[in-house]
């Protein structure tokens, strides 16, 4: 049924043999169990020589510092947000770098982007306050006096830390998508009414200490750990920063990995360009991926290309010039996809513009936005066959950009965009026609021949047939789990509703698809016609299952023997052995329960009588309650069993003919409950009686165990030996129920439920039925398909969110 052992089946991809430093792998690797070995998409840049992450950072810092030292002009390096920039421009070249020693702090008014960067460099990635501050919409930074500003003396900045952007919550694989840090509060989209260029509220608000929590923007409500169809140990790393490795020498990368600045003589001709890409490729499991680039300075010509590139595209070319690269160019607004002269696409862009760059893996098209407005889809087949990375290229002195991979809220409402696309994909899914192969899959008496027939010609299902399929799914599910009453009611009702009203038939004109209708009805009738026998069968099975859960192994054994004899003999009597072991456990529990009673009576000074009966009942109550709790949450078929026919271990008592029981002959007692076992009776019999009962119970248990031992002494199967050892070990504990650990695992209520499940499945199997309900198989198959699709780069799969569509709400 639903017992689910720990999911440990993540299969790490064997990394490349030329394995580099482990940390490098951790940084860039996508650990995917469902690897498509031949697919470049799934491996990342490990083929390139590279140093460790830490070294990367060092170097990144070194590079940018070095550059800054030589070209310390505001024009070349102005990382500020628009507002700040407007002041920067006014203030002229003296503005300086944020990370310069704090000798220069012209104004208290600082834009959020800038301030957050200094936070980035100064704070540990894992400290959530820093994240929170970063997300602050009105993230007004106070005087930076108490904020450490990076200097040459400070340690190198840690990897940029930000939460998974909110729009990625629409991906069914969101749990696998990670930035460097564990996901926390994702930034919500900025929702200021205006996006006027120089009107960031950050600049308008009075300066306050950013540590003040009052500035925190309302956090986006995160779904509380929604169920996922993937295991959590698979991680797809999102792009978080420009690579220090895969960038042209003329570009410097800032310490936080977000800024790119062009340095060097301005070049003429297409020969000279400089591009950079991110460390991590874009996982297609995002469904849609989006990032934004702010043009800090377009220099003189604005020869800036924003887009995507495959891993090995030449860094001396602008994105869009080479094969496997795509770009939107600022100087002419053209789009380029492996072409020399572009195609007219959108407006030009320049200093202060924020260009958004998205890729939609459901259509394998890209789209761009300018200052929060969608320009439109562009390019075909992007990201389909090759991994792509965010990439930016520049050509002239003075050009500089700053990227937002989700560090801050986006200008464009990408969240809405992703949601729309998800709806679109889901609509497509719901428009998928169902075909006749499902009739076989869901048919109640499916066997090998029908399964083989599945591959034959498929015809679309009529509405009636679809209904039949669903009804069969429902009935078989109810039947499997023994929801007898529901099943009966459903089938009765089903006949009423399912068939068209008779009055209609009279006036109904002849339809030409009678054959289809007939076959639909035929399948519909099948379960109904045999309803009686099926119901009897289910009821018998349910009774057996409930008996096991109630600890009444004798009844379970007797009924199984009568109705499903092959079950006990199957696998050389393994099921019988398991049941008999459980029987032994029940006997031991019974004895230990009596002993506890004895002790409690001695301890509390009660001599006997009804009073002690009550006290004992009270003593037991914790156990009862605990079990009832499990009953309700765990197994459903035991509703009745858990009630009147007490789940207490001493529900069964003693065993007859135990000593004569052979491997197949089953010990069965007609009267399974001795009245003396009930608490009230025990109370009346008194201490002496209880002691005697205990003795008897213990002896019976031991005798049963000895028989069991001798019956199976020749069975050397490991699982038999193992179970035997475990079962007998419980004798060593005074109260196995509370001993904890493996002992309680063996004796506890969960063990009964598990055994009952096994028996249920064994019975179903003996009848040639599937051991899990078809519905469950369907669900699992579907989830596995979606997962596989996601891993094979089919972006649409990311928007087929099964837990969301089927399990929530």
């Amino acid at each position: 049924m639903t017992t689910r052992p720990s999911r440990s089946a993540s299969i790490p991809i064997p990394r490349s043999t030329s394995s580099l430093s482990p940390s490098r792998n951790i940084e860039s690797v996508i650990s995917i169990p469902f690897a498509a070995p031949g697919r470049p998409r799934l491996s990342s840049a490990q083929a390139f020589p590279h140093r460790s992450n830490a070294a990367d950072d060092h170097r990144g810092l070194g590079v940018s510092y070095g550059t800054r030292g030589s070209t310390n002009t505001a024009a070349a390096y102005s990382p500020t947000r628009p507002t700040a920039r407007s002041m920067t421009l006014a203030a002229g070249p003296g503005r300086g770098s944020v990370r310069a020693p704090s000798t220069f702090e012209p104004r208290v008014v600082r834009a959020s982007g800038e301030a957050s960067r200094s936070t980035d460099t100064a704070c540990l990635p894992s400290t959530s306050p820093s994240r929170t501050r970063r997300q602050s919409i009105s993230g007004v930074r106070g005087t930076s006096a108490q904020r450490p500003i990076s200097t040459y003396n400070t340690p190198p900045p840690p990897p940029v830390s930000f939460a998974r952007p909110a729009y990625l919550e629409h991906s069914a694989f969101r749990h696998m998508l990670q930035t460097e840090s564990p996901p926390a509060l994702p930034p919500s989209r900025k929702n200021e009414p205006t996006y006027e260029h120089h009107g960031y509220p950050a600049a308008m608000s009075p300066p306050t200490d950013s540590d003040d929590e009052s500035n925190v923007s309302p956090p986006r409500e995160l779904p509380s750990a929604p169920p996922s169809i993937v295991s959590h140990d698979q991680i797809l790393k999102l792009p978080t920063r420009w690579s220090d490795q895969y960038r042209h020498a003329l570009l410097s990368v800032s310490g936080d990995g977000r800024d790119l600045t062009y340095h060097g003589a301005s070049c003429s001709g297409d020969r000279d360009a400089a591009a950079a890409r991110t460390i991590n490729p874009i996982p297609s499991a995002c469904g849609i991926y989006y990032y934004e680039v702010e043009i800090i300075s377009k220099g003189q010509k604005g020869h800036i290309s924003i887009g995507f590139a495959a891993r090995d595209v030449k860094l001396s070319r602008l994105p869009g010039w080479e094969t496997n690269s795509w770009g939107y160019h600022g100087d002419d607004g053209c789009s380029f996809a492996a072409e020399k002269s572009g195609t007219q696409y959108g407006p030009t862009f320049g200093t202060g513009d924020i260009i958004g760059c998205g890729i939609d893996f459901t259509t394998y098209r890209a789209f761009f936005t300018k200052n929060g407005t969608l320009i439109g889809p562009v390019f075909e087949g992007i990201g389909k066959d090759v991994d792509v990375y965010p990439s930016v290229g520049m050509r002239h002195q003075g050009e500089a950009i700053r990227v937002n991979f989700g560090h801050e809220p986006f200008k464009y409402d990408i969240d809405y965009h992703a949601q729309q696309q998800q709806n679109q994909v889901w609509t497509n899914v719901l428009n998928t026609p169902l075909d006749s192969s499902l009739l076989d899959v869901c048919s109640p008496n499916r066997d090998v021949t029908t399964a083989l027939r599945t591959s034959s010609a498929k015809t679309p299902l009529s509405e009636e047939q679809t209904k039949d399929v669903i009804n069969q799914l429902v009935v078989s599910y109810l039947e499997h789990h023994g929801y007898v009453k529901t099943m009966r009611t459903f089938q009765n009702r089903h006949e009423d509703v399912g068939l068209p009203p008779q009055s209609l038939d009279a006036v109904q004109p002849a339809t030409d698809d009678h054959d289809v209708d007939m076959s639909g009805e035929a399948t519909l009738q099948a379960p109904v016609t045999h309803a009686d026998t099926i119901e009897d069968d289910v009821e018998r099975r349910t009774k057996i299952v409930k008996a096991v859960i109630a600890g009444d192994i004798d009844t379970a054994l007797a009924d199984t023997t009568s109705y499903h004899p092959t079950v006990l003999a199957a696998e050389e009597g393994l099921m019988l052995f398991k049941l008999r072991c459980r029987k032994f456990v029940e006997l031991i529990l019974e004895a230990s329960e009596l002993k506890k009673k004895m002790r409690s009576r001695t301890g509390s000074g009660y001599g006997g009588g009804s009073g002690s009966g009550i006290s004992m009942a009270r003593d037991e109550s914790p156990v009862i309650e605990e079990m009832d709790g499990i009953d309700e949450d765990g197994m459903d078929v035991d509703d009745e069993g858990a009630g009147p026919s007490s789940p207490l271990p001493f529900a069964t008592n003693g065993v007859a003919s135990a000593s004569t029981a052979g491997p197949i002959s089953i010990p069965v007692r007609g009267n399974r409950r001795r009245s003396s076992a009930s608490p009230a009776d025990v109370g009346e019999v008194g201490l002496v009686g209880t002691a005697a009962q205990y003795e008897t119970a213990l002896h019976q248990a031991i005798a049963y165990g000895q028989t069991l031992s001798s019956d199976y002494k020749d069975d050397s199967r490991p699982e038999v030996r193992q179970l035997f050892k475990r079962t007998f070990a419980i004798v060593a504990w005074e109260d196995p129920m509370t001993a904890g650990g493996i002992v309680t695992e063996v004796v506890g209520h969960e063990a009964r439920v598990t055994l009952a499940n096994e028996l249920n499945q064994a019975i179903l199997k003996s009848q040639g039925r599937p051991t899990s309900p078809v519905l469950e198989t369907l669900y699992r198959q579907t989830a596995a398909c979606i997962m596989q699709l996601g891993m094979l780069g089919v972006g649409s799969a990311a928007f087929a969110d099964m837990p969301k569509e089927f399990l929530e709400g």
Partner: protein
Amino acid sequence: MAPKQSIRKEEWGRRLHDVQVTKNDLNRLIMDYLVIEGYKSAAEEFSQEANLAPPVDFESIESRMVIREALQRGDIEDAITRVNDLNPEILDTNPALYFHLQQQKLIEYIRHGRITEALQFAQSELAPRGEESPEFLSELERTMALLAFDCSPSAPAGISELLSPAQRMKTAGEVNAAILESLSQGKEVKLVGLLKLLSWGEQMLEEKAEFPRIGQM
């Protein structure tokens, strides 16, 4: 294109096993079906047997079903009255739904050969609405064409299908969905969605990989 990947049965079996879904999840899928399709007593039983909280008031299921049965019987007037009893806003805010109900009523008139009433009804109720939207108008035209063919089987399929039980079911389904929506309850049966997703997923995956289809494990 990367070559088709092949996934062996054991590997696939492991993945199936790894899928996270509980019995309770599946129970809720069943409940969703029982509720939306209006199996009231079955839903009640299931709520008890499976220890599931009912997602909606069971009485609302009942009234939904009475309405549906009225529509399937062809008693449109009764259905409209009951929908309005349940929640007058449903028809007020759904002009298309209301039109389809009126159209169904016209169809029933024609079906029973009550031509005079049909004409009168069409002129007084439907024609004014037909002017409201092109969709309504074309539907009205299609329906009126029934008169021309006098319900004969020789009528084109697009017209004679209006007399089929499927047309009643379609209208009933629309009403059902609208009521469910007014109760903020999902209106698509999730089990159907699951089947469709399975078909979609298997088709897509077939292009990319060899894997055991459902029923082949």
